[in-house]
């Protein structure tokens, strides 16, 4: 009952959305125009809401991206509120699982002196208790420079919305793996640099064959990411990571490319090499997307991390607040059997 009330509340208030690195093709090199978070994802800025109307969605009316589709007048620019409700049906290895993956809300507000405070809370997977995966305070003394402390994903590689992408999952940036961090960011017209001290976390959510589960792990270390904007619609970047956990450690480095082929087509690519105490691992991911009609993108991706994962699918944003994604593909876990896959994702972001 508590969950139902929370869901109804989430549906009635506010905009939040996942990261969209592919929007580099529109000249959106950084994430900070559309998202409160400088690394993307989470609650949208006012500009982000306008972008969901004009850039992302097939159709929209003026200010449809606003709270309650702008059907009810709300005070502007006091608090940005958003949230995500995602339901997924996933079939692989002869099993089909369908569940509510995420139902959360995030609020952010700007305080005097260049300070922004943001916090999220909600339900994730099979977790019955609400939790906050992201909360931070950010201080931005200049247009370029900012310092952020709190819980969020440290900057490394491409921040895909899909947490199952191999370069997210295999590098420890899967669903619920946000850590406490202190982040120094320098974002300029030529590119951006993020240096993040990872302060660890005690509680995280992981997904295995049985679904979501809670576990505890605390890695400490450092990540760094630097990007250089190429022309109007592309960028290249390098990432580094070194994290230690008791006597275990892992370190990784990688390169990525966000390539806007045209305003309607893009390529995302990332390669990483991760070294753990026991072995090295090569991880690679690439995705080609073509927006065939406004709001509807046909995509194909391939990821490799010892096993592989590939999909051919469509991603449709019919109107602001709604996303439907369907794909078919194949997956093979490392040293495991291969299986066909089918995925349907229904996403309401608000």
């Amino acid at each position, binding site marked *: 009952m508590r969950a139902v009330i929370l869901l109804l509340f989430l549906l009635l208030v506010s905009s939040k959305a996942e990261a969209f690195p592919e929007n580099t093709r*529109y*000249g*959106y*090199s*950084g*994430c*900070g*125009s*559309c998202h409160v978070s*400088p690394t993307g994802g989470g609650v949208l*800025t*006012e*500009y982000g*809401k*306008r*972008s969901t*109307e*004009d*850039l992302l969605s097939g159709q929209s009316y*003026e*200010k449809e991206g606003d709270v309650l589709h702008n059907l009810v007048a709300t005070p502007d*620019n006091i608090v940005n509120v958003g949230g995500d409700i995602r339901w997924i049906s996933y079939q692989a290895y002869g099993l089909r699982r369908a569940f509510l993956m995420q139902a959360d809300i995030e609020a952010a507000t700007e305080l005097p002196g260049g300070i922004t405070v943001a916090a999220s809370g909600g339900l994730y997977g099979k977790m019955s208790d609400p939790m906050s995966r992201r909360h931070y305070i950010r201080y931005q003394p200049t*247009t370029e420079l900012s310092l952020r402390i709190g819980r969020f994903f440290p900057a490394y590689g491409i921040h895909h919305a899909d947490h199952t992408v191999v370069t997210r999952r295999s590098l420890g940036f899967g669903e619920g793996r946000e850590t406490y961090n202190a982040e120094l960011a320098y*974002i*300029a*017209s030529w590119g951006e640099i993020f240096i993040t001290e990872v302060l660890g976390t005690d509680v995280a959510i992981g997904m295995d064959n049985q679904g979501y589960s809670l576990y505890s792990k605390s890695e400490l270390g450092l990540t760094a990411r630097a990007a250089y*904007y190429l022309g*109007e*619609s592309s960028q290249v970047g390098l990432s580094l990571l070194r994290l230690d956990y008791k006597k275990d450690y892992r370190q990784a480095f990688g390169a990525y490319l966000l390539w806007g082929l045209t*305003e309607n087509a893009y390529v995302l690519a990332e390669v990483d090499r991760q070294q753990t105490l026991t072995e090295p691992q090569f991880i690679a991911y690439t995705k080609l997307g073509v927006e065939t009609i406004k709001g509807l993108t046909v995509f194909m991706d391939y990821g490799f991390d010892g096993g592989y994962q590939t999909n051919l699918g469509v991603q449709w944003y019919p109107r602001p607040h709604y996303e439907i994604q369907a794909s078919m593909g194949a997956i093979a876990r490392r040293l495991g059997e291969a299986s066909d896959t089918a995925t349907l994702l229904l996403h309401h972001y608000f």
Partner: protein
Amino acid sequence: MRALAIIAVLLSFAMSAGAADKPVNLKVESSTLTFKAVGNPGFIRINGEKGKIGGVAVENADTVAGTFEAQMDDFVTGLSLRDKHMKEKYLETKKYPKAVLALAPLKPDYGKEQDFTGKLTLHGVTKDIKGKVTAVKLDKGVQAKGEFGVVLEDYGIAIPSYAGVTVAKDVTISFELVAKP
């Protein structure tokens, strides 16, 4: 007879020399006109596209001058509401529908990038500008490509701000055109 032939040759020289001195009007037949600005936060690139240039270049014996204009309502930036704000609130296109560039006489060095100067009237304010242009002589007419910068405040245009994104005051304007007699 011989004298007549000499007169005829001299006359033809005189006529051709006169033709070279006579100004030739080159009308802009095709063009692209864009602007680039940067918005913050996020350093987003704001590209104004679909601008068009009208006007006539006047080619004299060794210089080219001319007056060119653009309809400010032609520009689009990819976000319709942002365009509406840009045109209504900042550029005030109903009040100032056109931007006009009066090109100062320029001795063309075809095939090479060179500096040009002129007077730009934008938002009802006229200011001197400097830019770079590369012109290529065609069989008939001229092809030119170049860019120049403007500072919005110089033209009485408030620094545009839309949905929390503020545009930097420096805007780069790029053009490409073909002008023919």
